[in-house]
């Protein structure tokens, strides 16, 4: 009996695997009996923050973590043409032709899907570093819709976007209420809340659904997934696991990633010993200097030095940094070195869609012998 049960599990597992990664559009060509053709599990594997459900002639986009501690899922119907769905929730016509994005992480995803020209507005365009999109800014096709986090509602209404892709810590922006009243759908993108690098990258499928390019999004993600898993396998070959510290002091408080956070997951996948790997939480820890020094004085690597990109800047901010072995051994690295023409940090823009590069960077730095010919892209040593 036990054996049979096992066999059954393997079989169903195999079937599940077969259907993994299939997109709505692939499926929609087939004859479908059930109303709901495919469960979300099949479309989204790693990301926990959203689901895509395919129905016969429409899709349902469910954003489960639009912002931290949200109590309700946000649901949208994505329809082509005039479709009666019978569901009384917000409907967005796809493919979306004119959209406004609000985070630089949205830019590369649009570009990969060949849809950057559908982007008509962005707040604080200075922070966009990608050349392709920068060309649109200088060409006047892309309007700056407000500095900082405050969106200029008037300009947005005048632009008449099909949808606004928002991100934020809550839904309290007054501009959102105004825009909704004017019939502009607001869809929250919670990519930054994902705890795993692949989960974050998978948000490309969110854009795929909106742009009606599910198949393309899916194939792009498959490549990322494959490369990431490969890099992880390479890291597993390492014989030693160097210890890692992270973060800097801000106001007597040392901020560093918690044990279940995105960064901690990356460090784990790079086969390193992140000193706070056992701590609880997905956000960051706020510790004091003494406890960090006690724990990490002898750490091998210091990954992520906040805003500081030079050793002297670190020391000027706080002389105590010199007490760490990683600092003395010139093993302090930062992701913030590469900047775009407007001062935007490339890592912030590109890391979500290039988790494999980030992982390889980490592997190269912490286990240089495993990737002899690789040149890190994001992760640079402080000079």
């Amino acid at each position, binding site marked *: 009996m036990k054996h049979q049960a096992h066999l059954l599990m393997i079989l169903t597992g195999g079937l599940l695997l077969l259907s993994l990664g299939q997109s709505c559009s692939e499926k929609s060509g087939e004859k479908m009996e059930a109303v709901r053709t495919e469960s979300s599990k099949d479309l989204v594997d790693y990301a926990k923050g959203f689901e895509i459900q395919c129905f016969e002639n429409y899709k349902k986009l469910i954003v489960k973590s639009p912002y931290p501690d949200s109590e309700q899922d946000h649901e949208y119907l994505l329809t082509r043409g005039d479709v009666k769905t019978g569901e009384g929730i917000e409907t967005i016509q796809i493919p979306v032709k004119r959209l406004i994005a609000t985070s630089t992480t949205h830019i590369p995803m649009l570009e990969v899907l060949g849809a950057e020209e559908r982007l008509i507005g962005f707040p604080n365009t200075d922070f966009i570093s990608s050349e392709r999109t920068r060309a649109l800014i200088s060409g006047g096709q892309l309007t700056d819709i407000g500095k900082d986090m405050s969106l200029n509602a008037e300009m947005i209404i005048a632009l008449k976007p099909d949808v606004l892709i928002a991100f934020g810590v809550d839904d309290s922006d007054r501009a959102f209420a105004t825009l909704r009243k004017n019939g502009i759908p607001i869809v929250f993108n919670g990519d930054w809340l994902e705890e795993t690098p692949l989960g974050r990258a998978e948000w490309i499928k969110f854009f795929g659904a909106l742009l009606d390019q599910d198949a393309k999004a899916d194939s792009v993600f498959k490549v990322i997934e494959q490369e990431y898993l490969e890099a992880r396998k390479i890291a597993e070959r390492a014989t030693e696991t160097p210890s890692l510290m992270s973060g800097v002091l801000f*106001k007597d408080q040392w901020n560093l990633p918690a044990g279940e956070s995105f960064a901690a997951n990356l460090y784990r996948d790079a086969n390193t010993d992140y000193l706070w790997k056992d701590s609880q939480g997905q956000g960051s820890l706020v*510790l*004091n200097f*003494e406890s960090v*020094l006690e724990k990490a*004085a002898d750490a091998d690597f210091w990954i992520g030095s906040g805003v500081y990109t030079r050793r002297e800047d670190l020391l*000027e901010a706080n*002389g105590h940094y010199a007490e760490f072995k990683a600092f003395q051994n010139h093993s302090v690295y930062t992701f913030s070195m590469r900047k775009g023409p407007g*001062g935007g940090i490339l890592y912030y823009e590109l890391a979500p869609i290039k988790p494999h590069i980030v992982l390889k960077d980490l592997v190269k730095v912490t286990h240089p012998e495993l990737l002899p010919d690789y040149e890190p892209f994001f992760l640079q040593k402080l000079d």
Partner: protein
Amino acid sequence: MRTSGNNKLVITLIFLALALMFLVNVSLGSVNIPLGEIMNAILGGESEKETWKYIVLNYRLPKAVTAILVGSGLSVSGLLMQTLFRNPLAGPYVLGISSGASLGVALLLLGSSVAGGSLLLLSTSHMMVSIAASLGAFGVLTAVMLVSRQLKNTMSILIVGLMFSSLSAAVISVLAYFSSAESLQRYTFWGFGSLGNLTWSELLVFGILFLIALLLLLPSIKPLNSLLLGENYAKSVGMEMKRTRNLILLSTSLFTGVITAFSGPIAFIGLAAPHLTKLMLNTSDHRVVLPAAALFGALIMLISDTIAQMPGSEYTLPINAITTLFGAPIVIWLLLRKRRMVL
């Protein structure tokens, strides 16, 4: 005679409490270091762990010394302002002098990026930041001083102080809007300064500037007593009003400016400490009140810092949260009992 004896006793007690608190502050922290090891480290012996020795000698000790300088400096400048304005609610934080110091630094760090990079080279040193902060403090202090001559009402002056800190905050946010991301970062990181990030060499600079402010103050301690009875009285006993006032203004802004430059704006100590001191003493002679207020301010600051470190835990609270918990109730209490206030 008996009263002066009492005052001596009070000051001695405060001093002893301060010494005790100093030891407590150095002994407690998030890392649990045995008392023997702490003494060992201070007395220059070999420590069991190298990090322990570093934490005691180069983190906790400078932090405790910083707390003493900050606490006593703020308390003294609070006392001076209360006498000068003849107003119990005067204090560096409440009257917007600390915000003025922040504005000075913002103009230096952010303004240079708006106006071009020429100033940026200079702006890195602590000395420059201190000077900018002192100038900012001096500017706001003078402005409040001028306004307060027109308004005798305590409440109105408080509101004026509030307006000045809002004004400073507004100017800073406008500057921030136009300045580059990089200099904004510099400013943000400065603005949340703390007691714990000074090394011994930075502390030395701090100490020297502190001493200068103190020296400026010494000649005006005696005339301060006559000021308590009003400017007219002070004039009638032959006091050089202008010179005394200028010296006090200068010294107060230097205190506030330097402290703000090194440790960021710290709330309410300057207001609360002098009042609590005066409650304990039965004299208003500045030769007694001033040193007592300095000691007591240092004591409160050390206690606040010890609490903020939350001994035994890995976490730490913002120091301003603690000092505000101390200070804000005192402001309310003062407003409620205003009629019975003794200056």
